[in-house]
């Protein structure tokens, strides 16, 4: 479903080049849950950003459905991010001036077309699925950290995306809340959603179908 081939990426700051990815390859099957672990600076978040098209690689290819997405036009990339790919960040990044429901509806608000009742119903379904039924009218500031992260996950689900990229989704949550978020991801995987999750927590990583270990910008292990 998603395949990364020999991805390289180097960041340059003040004339100093720092290689972040040095030829990383990975394949993610449909409905597969892959977790990526590694120390800070190992390149796992950079790799996730490349896979989710948020960062263009210096070299290599990312194939989705057999097509090289690194060669997509900006318009096609926008469509891909809007329809097929979904990203959940460590910090939920909800817009504070929109309610939980409106945050979930954001992927439907990319143009001048008005959000219809069908989309609203879909948002309510997603909120219910993440355990936030009845809280759609609340502003993010009035929700707990775990609830905010659930809203972010509901936002990722609202367009029936094919792959969910999660960057440390439990990194900013306490153990209990993190556990509930992981249960939710496991449920989503069971329903057929492909998930690529970056985490530094071994116990959460082991719940995935595969654990990819990264070190110094390379895949150190895949099991």
């Amino acid at each position, binding site marked *: 479903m998603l395949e990364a081939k020999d991805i390289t990426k180097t960041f340059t700051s003040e004339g100093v080049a720092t290689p972040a990815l040095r030829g990383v390859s990975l394949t993610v099957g449909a409905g597969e849950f892959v977790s990526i672990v590694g120390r800070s600076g190992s390149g796992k978040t950079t790799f996730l950003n490349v896979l989710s098209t948020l*960062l263009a690689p210096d070299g290599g290819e990312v194939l989705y459905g057999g097509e090289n997405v690194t060669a997509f036009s900006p318009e096609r990339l926008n469509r*891909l*991010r809007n329809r097929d790919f979904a990203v959940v960040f460590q910090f939920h990044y909800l817009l504070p001036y*929109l309610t939980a429901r409106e945050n979930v509806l*954001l992927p439907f608000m990319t143009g*001048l077309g008005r959000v219809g009742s069908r989309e609203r119903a879909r948002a309510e379904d997603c909120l219910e699925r993440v355990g936030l039924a009845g809280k759609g009218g609340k502003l993010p500031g009035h929700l707990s950290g775990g609830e905010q992260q659930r809203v972010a996950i509901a936002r990722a689900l609202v367009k029936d995306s094919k792959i969910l990229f999660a960057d440390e989704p439990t990194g900013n949550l306490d153990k209990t809340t993190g556990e509930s978020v992981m249960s939710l991801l496991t449920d989503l995987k069971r329903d057929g959603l492909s998930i690529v999750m970056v985490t530094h927590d071994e116990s959460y990583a082991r719940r995935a179908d595969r654990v990819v270990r990264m070190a110094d910008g390379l895949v150190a292990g895949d099991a």
Partner: protein
Amino acid sequence: MNILTIPLRTMRKKWLKTSLLFTVFTLSVVAIVSLNYVSREVGHSLEKKLTAFGANILVTPRSEKLTVSYGGFSLGDMLMGMTDLREADVEERILSIGYRDRISVVAPKLVSMARVGDVAVGVVGVRFEREKVLKGYWSMQGDFPAAENGVLAGSKAAARLGLKVGDGFDLAGRPAVVSGVLDPTGSDDDSVIFADLGFAQAAFGQEDKVSFVEVAALCAGCPIEDIVRQLEEKLPDTEIQAMQSIVKQRMYSVHFVEHLILTVSLVILFIACCMVGATMLSSVNERIREIGLLRSLGFSRSGIFGVFCFEAALIGLAAGVVGYFGGFFLSVKVLDLLGMAQEAEAAMHAGHLLLTCALIVGVSVLAAFFPSWKAASIEPSTALISL
């Protein structure tokens, strides 16, 4: 809900910043609109006042000048084929042109020669009530004549004839009384005696005739050439001369005020634009995470660009509407303070409102162009790295 919900909610959430920006922009619009109205009224008023410093169009009978000499004896310049100007007819024609509303004063004059005692002197018949407007710079001992046989003596003429205020003398066989003696002006006015036009026409047997007509036209709304052309059409047997130097000097004064106000307005507008630009730029920097998130959700560059431009346009529109009304009422107050409210012609106009709003919206969007472009250019990855 659609993409425009985002800027609308942002503005509501950041109401303090929005209010400040709106206030600054509105005050700028108020200043510009009020300056515009006031400058226009001051310009009109100034031009009307400048009319007191002379006419700018001269209407004379058409004639052919011939220099005659024979056998070494010169007869001097002779005027041939000169037609008389009839006061009532000329006035009626002048006041029938398309630009008649721009005609401020029509001052007919009859020039003759007379002897007072043994001294020859020029006599100019005038309509004193019009000369008062046209010769606002005159100062005198005594006053303008109230009676038909009252005259004003130029300073040199009065000295030559030994006349002073209250003296009676014989003018072309009719008794005349000096009601005023002009202070020296440095012009031809010093050497002549001004009498009432009707008195002069009767005394010199020139009923209803005039030698020439001075016209003071207001040229703020139209070029002097257009007024002259219309006068030529209405008065085919006359020569119409525009006194360009007077017109230019007068319009220079009027335009100086208008240009000064325009410059001040542009400076205010530029400062307001800088404020909008700086605020939008800081807003982009503050909302870089939001931009990154929206781009990761599939929002296009043009969509992000539109979000920021829409914010600026909304503030510009609100500032344009409020600023226009505020500016208009401020200009009324200022004109009132200047004592010009009575004669002011300023009026609110839907076209002016639309023009102001369109201009301010355009300028605010232009000011927000760079910040919006910067926002649209941010790659999701850049925003994410900055997180």
